[in-house]
């Protein structure tokens, strides 16, 4: 990790590390996939242009706190199939404190946190992973004698922005399910005076995190958020609206059991309990581990709705989602079906024939009448 170095641009950092420009441009391409619209750093027409823009930004300092977590959100960031990206990562962000990957431990770790906060006071991005227990005065999470609530409050106070990474940090996640014995809660219940961006997911897509951080670094502002504090560029749509298996849903082709013909044919998993219709998440178009189709539905398991508080770890995985207001497709059979119209040729023919017959009749009547008057 880079400590005590003067803050410099990402471009400079990459240059100093000797990372190839090609790898960086590839990385920027992945950012564009993660945020196809709604983000200023990716609103360019090519990865090169994005690379240009991102390269100009100052390398952001990131402090990463772990609360009641499983470290999955860290893993998702580190789980890449391209070793180059792992090294690239530390040229794009300055990960100044991270309990899992840093070398220090014990008192050295405490010191590292303190130094990181001091060196980047007011400028660092705080990423929080895991929920914060609040019951019994937060006694269920203590690090070096301090409980999670206090730790979070203190670190957040001196941050520029806070990102709640993962469902646990966003709304409480697994620890908060059912009876919630520890009173687990999300970051935005505790941090009130800083902008908090929620990135729910279990885990969320790492590129969404990176895009959010880099947006901060580049523009100094968070991306546009929805009512639940989630960035719109990733969470504005449900899985269902973007699902590659949607055509099967629309055509009524459902897998009824794991391993049956429908399942093997890649049919819709709705009947197996897929929560796609009620889950806002970017997974259907941004897969994991940089492997195509490496996401739940892609490998044949229904979405469990891990981003949504009302769904994940609450509604059983194989219970079908209740869709109360399905959005009908644009093309759908209507109540009144317009049928073939009337052929103008037919009407013309009928008119001609009918008219001719009636005309002939009238003429005959006239001649018959005049004949008899002659007799």
């Amino acid at each position, binding site marked *: 990790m880079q400590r005590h170095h003067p803050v410099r641009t990402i471009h400079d950092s990459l240059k100093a590390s000797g990372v190839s420009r090609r790898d960086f441009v590839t990385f920027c391409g992945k950012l564009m996939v993660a945020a196809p619209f709604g983000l200023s750093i990716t609103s360019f027409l090519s990865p090169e242009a994005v690379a240009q823009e991102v390269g100009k930004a100052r390398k952001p300092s990131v402090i990463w706190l772990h609360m009641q977590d499983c470290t999955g959100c860290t893993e998702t960031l580190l789980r890449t199939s391209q070793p180059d990206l792992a090294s690239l990562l530390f040229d794009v962000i300055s990960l100044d404190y991270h309990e899992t990957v840093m070398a220090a431990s014990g008192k050295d770790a405490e010191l590292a946190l303190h130094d990181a906060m001091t060196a980047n006071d007011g400028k660092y991005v705080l990423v929080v992973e895991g929920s914060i227990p609040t019951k019994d005065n937060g006694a269920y999470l203590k690090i070096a004698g301090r409980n999670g609530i206090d730790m979070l409050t203190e670190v957040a106070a001196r941050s520029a922005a806070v990102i709640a990474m993962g469902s646990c940090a966003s709304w409480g996640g697994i620890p908060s399910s059912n009876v919630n014995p520890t009173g687990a809660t999300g970051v935005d219940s505790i941090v009130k005076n800083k902008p908090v961006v929620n990135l729910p997911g279990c885990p969320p897509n790492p590129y969404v995190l990176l895009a959010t951080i880099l947006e901060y670094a580049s523009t100094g502002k968070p991306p546009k958020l929805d009512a639940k504090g989630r960035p719109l560029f990733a969470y504005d749509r449900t899985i269902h609206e973007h699902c590659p298996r949607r055509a099967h849903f629309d055509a*009524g082709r459902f897998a009824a059991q794991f391993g049956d013909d429908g399942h093997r044919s890649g049919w819709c998993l709705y009947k197996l309990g897929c929560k796609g219709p009620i889950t806002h998440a970017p997974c259907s178009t941004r897969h994991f581990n940089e492997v195509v189709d490496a996401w739940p539905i892609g490998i044949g398991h229904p979405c469990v709705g891990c981003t949504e508080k009302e769904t994940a770890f609450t509604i059983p995985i194989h219970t079908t989602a209740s*869709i109360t207001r399905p959005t009908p497709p644009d093309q759908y059979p209507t*109540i009144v079906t317009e049928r073939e119209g009337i052929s103008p040729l037919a009407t013309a023919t009928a008119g001609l024939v009918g008219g001719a017959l009636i005309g002939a009749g009238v003429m005959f009547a006239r001649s018959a009448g005049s004949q008899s008057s002659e007799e």
Partner: protein
Amino acid sequence: METDRRSLFKTLAVAATLTVIPTTAQARERRIAPTDAVGLLYDTTRCIGCKACVVACKEANGLTADVDGYGGGLYDAPESLNEYTKTVIQLYRDDSAGEYSFVKKQCMHCVDPACVGACMLGALNKGAFGVVGYDSSKCVGCRYCEVACPFNVPTFQWSKRSSKIVKCELCRHRLVEGKEPACSEVCPRGAVRFGRYDDLLADARARLAAEPDRYVQRIYGERELGGTQVLYVSHVPFENLGFRFDDEQSVPHTQQTVQHGVYQGFVAPLALYGILGAVMFRNRRARKTDEETQ
């Protein structure tokens, strides 16, 4: 000749009256569903328009794909009931009112079916469990059933050289095997439910009572057109879903009251025949007498 004409007019008037003016005296009894009647209950609030029922129906009944219309020659995308499609889902959508609903269309399996009343040799018949079935061996393809059905259900195989009628028969070939109809079996939301008619009616009533704000307070098919064994509950008015009629009298009622009034026991036609024959006989005898005396 004078007496002839007067008495003739009288007898003919009586005969004509007998034969054509409807008798109101014997109105036809209102039919009720058989005790073992089965049916469907369709709930628009649960339907998500996935068309699994359409697909399953086609598979269970061996129907071919319907690629005309917006299927663009590639997709099986039926827009309405036709010779390839025994059930279809349609969408009612009113963007200005902000409301929409899916609706499933298929044979209503009426308690007093118009099509059964129409069919000359009983190819369409109300059979076991009150299901309206079709036996093509007795069908000449006259399409009178299509004239009769108020729901536009029976469809004709226009594309074939030998054309039969095609319509939902509630998968009676599966019912005899103890299975339920394909559509209700596959429905992922339980929007279309199969069961005994009495149970379905009770269920529908319970749903309306439990959530009065969610549903229009009417079960379509409970009384309309004599009652149907396929029942509908909905969150939008039924007219918007294409259900045009709310008259409680069954379609065959009027026509059969008229018909029976005339042909009861074939008395009137036989009587008329007798009168015609008798009159002609008398006329011929009178004419022969005239000729003889001349």
